[in-house]
């Protein structure tokens, strides 16, 4: 399942997509939860009883601002969360 967390507003589209089929195969116990400097990731049991990463509810409506520090303007060349996710389950839409 592809879970898209985020929103679209007048300024653009801001979604973090998590491929839960890849996420369940995580060999490094969800490094994304430790990689995110804003502590935006959590591990949940989804509706189909899989333990997967998700974006914490308060951050789902503020991604454009929360992720700013990890974008090129913040001095990063790669995103900490997508880099830490070795199965390649996490994608940013912007």
């Amino acid at each position, binding site marked *: *399942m592809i*879970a*898209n967390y985020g929103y679209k507003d007048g300024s653009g589209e801001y979604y973090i997509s998590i491929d839960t089929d890849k996420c369940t195969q995580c060999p490094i116990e969800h490094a994304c939860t430790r990689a995110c400097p804003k502590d935006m990731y959590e591990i949940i049991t989804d*509706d189909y009883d899989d333990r997967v990463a998700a974006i914490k509810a308060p951050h789902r*409506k503020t991604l454009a601002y929360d992720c700013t520090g990890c974008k090129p303007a913040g001095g990063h060349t790669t995103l900490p969360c997508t880099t830490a996710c070795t199965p390649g389950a996490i994608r940013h839409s912007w």
Partner: protein
Amino acid sequence: MNTTAAAAPAAGEKKEYWRWQESVWVDETKNWRDAKFITAGIDVGSVSSQAVVMCDGELYGYSSMRTGSNSPDSANNAIKSVLEKAGGMTLDDLQFVVGTGYGRVNVPFANKAITEIACHARGANYMGGSSIRTILDMGGQDCKAIHCDERGKVTNFLMNDKCAAGTGRGMEVIADLMQIPIADLGPRSFDVDVEPPAVSSVCVVFAKSEALGLLKAGWSKNKVVAAYCQAMAERVVSLLERIGVEKDFFITGGIAKNPGVVKRLERLLKLESVQTKYDSQIAGALGAALFGYTLVQKQGVPAKAASG
């Protein structure tokens, strides 16, 4: 179907054009006492609450009521409406109850809570058939685009609950502003000589001021409504395109009852939505009741319900 009409305003009271009709229905050809498993789904949404009762995985009854300020009360109100109509059925007769919707964790008699994403997909699969792949839920204060497989299992989803644009609440605001009953908005949006372009902003706040500006510029109410319906359709199409639209396509939620949005949406997608004999608003609660049916078969009747 027995429906409850919206209460007429008292003298001096402001008419609420946004008020939609609540409904309660029970299949009187069935006897619930014959069922092996009775399950229920309760969908407490931000604007409406639905309760669905199923007997052995078949729809037996439902209610669709307005959500109040308190989720537990709204859930109780919805289920009691069905139970009263069902003749002798009590909460203890429900062997498994699943709560869903934004108030799902506050359904006091629920055995489990499941997200509305999964429940809408399951409900649409029941209502529209196993060929349904893309579902658009246009809810009261959010909009969900869901992709599912032939069993109604979600394969891709996104939800926009940050902005009221493209939601039922947006339509309610326009109904009040235009002083047109909400059920008439769709049909009246087609009563225009030339289809107008969409309003430039679907933001509920800005659309309101833009609609007022258009009225002042001499546009008819019908033309303004048509422009707003077009804007809503364009808005949700952009959400749907993000997950990819695949046949068959199904619309759930209250706005599925607004042909002004649905027809324009179908025109933009070049795809007709699957029609159903069921009330589009019960999809989430129906899916929750179906999850309950699967769970009670797999796990048995929960201890509390069994002792009751």
